């Protein structure tokens, strides 16, 4: 219970002191570094008139092409003998001013167009967006070149050109957000309270759009500085004697072979400027757009990490099932707190038997199923203890290679939503053939024949033609049949079905259940059937285990548990199943919510929602009491005990 107290202590700290935007930004060391460099460059550029610099435009032919670190010229001189340090700082000033102005202009007009298009909708939207599309149909720099060609070379014209070609980026981004916002309740409320469209747009919507504008600005400003420098480099931007970083580079290029420092130095400055802006911009984006924050997209590895602190539990002696799960514990570590999704689960599954695991969402039943073959995503998940024995082989101790061999052949899975669990870009046949070919050394023709056979087995009509269908072309029931066919491809000993019928309508659900039941009888496969629905359990399961807050609270033969539930939670769950012809039956969900598994209370986890709770229920460890061979309950004051005894 030390973990619990730790998390309790941590909680208020995290909620009361939610870090501000700036604090989050400074947390990111790269963004901080970028900000420091950027601020330093900006300060130096701003202070240019105050610094003891040589006049950037005074030529001194005698001192031409002085190298770096020469006397009086720290960075040397160019082909006209002008001091490079001074020109660099003054040039940076110009480049910064031009880049920032272009960004502000593009942001202003682009956001305005986007706001109007997104809010007005209809014809205005179509008109504006078609125009934007048209501009975006041009390669970006090319359009800027065309504009400069018309306006004539010059720094201001380059600025306009770069600003103009960037307007579409802003318009598109802002329009999308505005479109979403203008259908929200607060906008409706403002409209009903008689505010004018302009008021709604600028007082209600604009503040919500502002973060997006800032993100787009921070990600484009570096680019705009680069592009204006590029136009100057080509001789189309700043005209002599005025100089920005790009035109310095362009002039230096002519003497690249004799005095490389003249072009290398301004290029380095552009690089430092743009790099620091990009680092900072990425940081800003991460803070303002948490969806993109690094770490929110963590890649799960191929197999759940196993970190068993204690020695693994030995396999049960004597008659074990085909699958024996002993004291299995699975945890998730998220943001410093540990969620004990599965807190010590024991299961035994004999060949040809169907065991149901029932519980509300969040009870840990799916995690239990995934843990067995190491399919719980790591990070953040890990198996923290216990063991799972498949025919006496500890699945948490075998090699990755071995587990890969067992997956899909000895133990096969059927998952909940067949649309998301089938790969959308491969045909049903591809996926089925892959399942067969991975574990059986068959020729292509044999694999195909087997695939057709499997599809017929799960009663898919026109099996041969269906092989070339994509998942989205099939109905939900058909897709789930394909998933079941895939699971059956290698005559698995254990079939783990994780809510296989939840996404399906009732008729299809009963067809799938009948199908699975038939297959179990025919092939003597064991089924671990995860569901939240006691109705489904009664249709297919021999035995049932009820899970709550990561532990089994009651287990027994299905008909016994259904007829005389002993745990108050089981009783409530059974009450939730509607029965035909009993309309007066109470169908209200169980009051309250299951406890969060990073902060489990002492004693019974169900105590807070239990009508029969007594003080003793809230302390100590409550054991799963096995009353008869396969009947057990984790409750101090069970129901219906006389009936079961």
């Amino acid at each position, binding site marked *: 219970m030390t973990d619990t107290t730790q998390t309790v202590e941590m909680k208020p700290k995290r909620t009361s002191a939610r870090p501000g935007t700036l604090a989050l930004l400074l947390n990111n060391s790269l963004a901080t570094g970028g900000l420091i460099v950027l601020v330093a460059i900006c300060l130096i550029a701003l202070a240019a008139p105050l610094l003891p610099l040589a006049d950037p435009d005074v030529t001194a032919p005698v001192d031409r092409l002085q190298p770096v670190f020469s006397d009086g010229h720290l960075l040397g001189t160019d082909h006209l003998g002008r001091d490079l340090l001074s020109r660099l700082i003054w040039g940076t000033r110009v480049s910064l001013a031009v880049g920032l102005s272009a960004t502000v202009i593009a942001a202003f007009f682009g956001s305005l167009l986007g706001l109007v298009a997104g809010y007005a909708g209809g014809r205005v939207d179509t008109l504006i967006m078609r125009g934007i599309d*048209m501009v975006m149909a041009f*390669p970006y720099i090319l359009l800027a070149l065309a504009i400069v060609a018309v306006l004539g070379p010059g720094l201001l014209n380059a600025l306009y050109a770069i600003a103009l070609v960037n307007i579409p980026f802003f318009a598109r981004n802002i329009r999308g957000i505005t479109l979403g916002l203008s259908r929200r309740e607060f906008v409706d409320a403002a409209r009903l309270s008689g505010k004018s469209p302009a008021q709604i747009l600028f007082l209600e919507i604009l503040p919500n759009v502002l973060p997006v504008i800032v993100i787009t600005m921070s990600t484009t400003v570096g680019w705009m500085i680069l592009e204006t420098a590029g136009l100057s480099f080509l001789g189309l931007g700043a005209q002599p004697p005025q100089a920005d970083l790009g035109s310095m580079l362009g002039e230096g290029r002519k003497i690249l072979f004799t005095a490389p420092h003249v072009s290398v130095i301004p290029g380095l400055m552009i690089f430092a400027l743009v790099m620091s802006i990009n*680092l900072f911009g990425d940081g800003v984006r991460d803070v303002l757009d948490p969806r993109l924050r690094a770490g929110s997209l963590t890649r799960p590895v191929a197999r759940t990490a196993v970190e068993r602190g204690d020695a693994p539990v030995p396999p049960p002696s004597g008659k074990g099932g085909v699958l024996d799960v002993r004291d299995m514990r699975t945890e998730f570590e998220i943001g410093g707190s540990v969620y004990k999704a599965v807190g010590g689960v024991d299961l035994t599954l004999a060949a040809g038997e169907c065991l149901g695991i029932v519980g509300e969402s969040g009870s840990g039943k799916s995690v239990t199923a995934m843990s067995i073959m190491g399919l719980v995503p790591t990070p953040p998940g890990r198996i923290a203890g216990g063991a799972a024995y498949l025919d006496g082989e500890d699945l948490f101790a075998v090699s990755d290679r071995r587990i890969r061999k067992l997956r899909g052949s000895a133990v096969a899975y059927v998952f909940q939503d067949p649309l998301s669990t089938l790969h*959308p*870009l491969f045909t049903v046949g591809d996926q089925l053939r892959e399942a067969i070919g991975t574990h059986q050394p068959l020729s292509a023709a044999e694999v195909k024949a087997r695939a057709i056979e499997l599809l017929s087995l799960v009663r898919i009509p026109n099996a041969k033609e269906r092989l070339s269908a994509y998942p989205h072309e099939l109905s939900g029931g058909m897709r789930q049949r394909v998933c079941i066919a895939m699971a059956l491809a290698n005559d698995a000993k254990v079939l783990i079905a994780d809510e296989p019928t939840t996404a399906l309508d009732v008729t299809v659900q009963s067809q799938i259940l009948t199908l699975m039941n038939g297959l179990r009888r025919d092939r003597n496969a064991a089924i671990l059937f995860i569901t939240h629905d006691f109705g489904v359990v009664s249709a297919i399961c021999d035995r049932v285990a009820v899970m709550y807050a990561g532990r089994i609270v009651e287990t027994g033969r299905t008909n016994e548990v259904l007829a005389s539930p002993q745990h108050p939670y089981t009783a409530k769950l059974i009450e939730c199943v509607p029965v035909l012809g009993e309309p007066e039956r109470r169908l209200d969900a169980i009051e309250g919510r299951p406890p969060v598994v990073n902060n489990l209370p002492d004693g019974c986890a169900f105590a807070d929602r239990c009508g029969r709770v007594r003080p003793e229920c809230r302390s100590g460890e409550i054991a799963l009491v096995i009353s008869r061979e396969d009947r057990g309950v984790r409750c101090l004051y069970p129901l219906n005990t006389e009936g079961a005894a």
Partner: protein
Amino acid sequence: MAAYIARRLLAAIPVLFGLTIIVFLIMAMIPGDPATAILGSYATPENVARLNRELGLDKTLFEQYVIWIGNLFQGDLGRSYTLNRPVLDEVLERFSATLILAGTSLVLCSVFGLLAGIVSAVRQYGWADKIITLLVLVGISTPSFWLGLILILIFAVNLRLFPASGMYAIYGGSDLPDLIHHLTLPALTLSVVATGVIARLTRTAMLEVLRQDYIRTARAKGLSERKVIYKHAFKSALVGVVPVIGIQAGFVIGGAVYIETVFQWPGIGSMLVTAISTRDLLLVQGGVLVVAAAYVLFNLFADVVQTLLDPRLR
């Protein structure tokens, strides 16, 4: 599928028309009198009037557009007054050189970008990921025209491995080794930024895909990690990356303007820069139009590839 491609081609026609309108309007918006601009400020009024008549500038804007587009359909984009040859001939000749450069760069950035992105995603937070992420940041922050100069300094001046310029004979006379010799530096330089962008996007797309349910299904089937990543995850990630490669084509062609100038590559970019400084506006107009049309067609191609990859889009 054929019907889809036909539909997409039809949809591209209004876009192409839109392009001609924009290009035409930009050129029509030139401040001042184009005839004076072409002839210079010392031209006599009679000469100006005659040139205006010759250029059709005494007619309304709409009439001018109709005449212009009519000529365009006959392959007549006017005559370059600086080169004294038909604009279309010059533009097509230059464009083929740009296609070689930009096409090579696009292949390079696609291959390197996708590979780097995959490695980065698979080794998330590992050393390879950190190094790639840093290189990507450096790559997209480096001015390509400056990088070109640096590469010339290193590989052409100091190491003497590749030439700094001198690609004059794209049309006839040059053999493949010579072409590759001249192409290496500019193509590499041009591909750097796009490689970074594609790598970044591929990484995000791969990470997104690897969390999908169907990847768990692939693992539950007992597939090797290599198949899970390079077959199941990569194909899905590619669907998102292909349109970005299409967009990057635009940036590569645009970037070619700098790179062609730096390496004196006889392509359309360096032609445009010269034409702008000599105010040869018909040449600018023709060049912009041809490149923009090619870009539209390439994006069409990217769309079709995306649809081939993803049956749901058909």
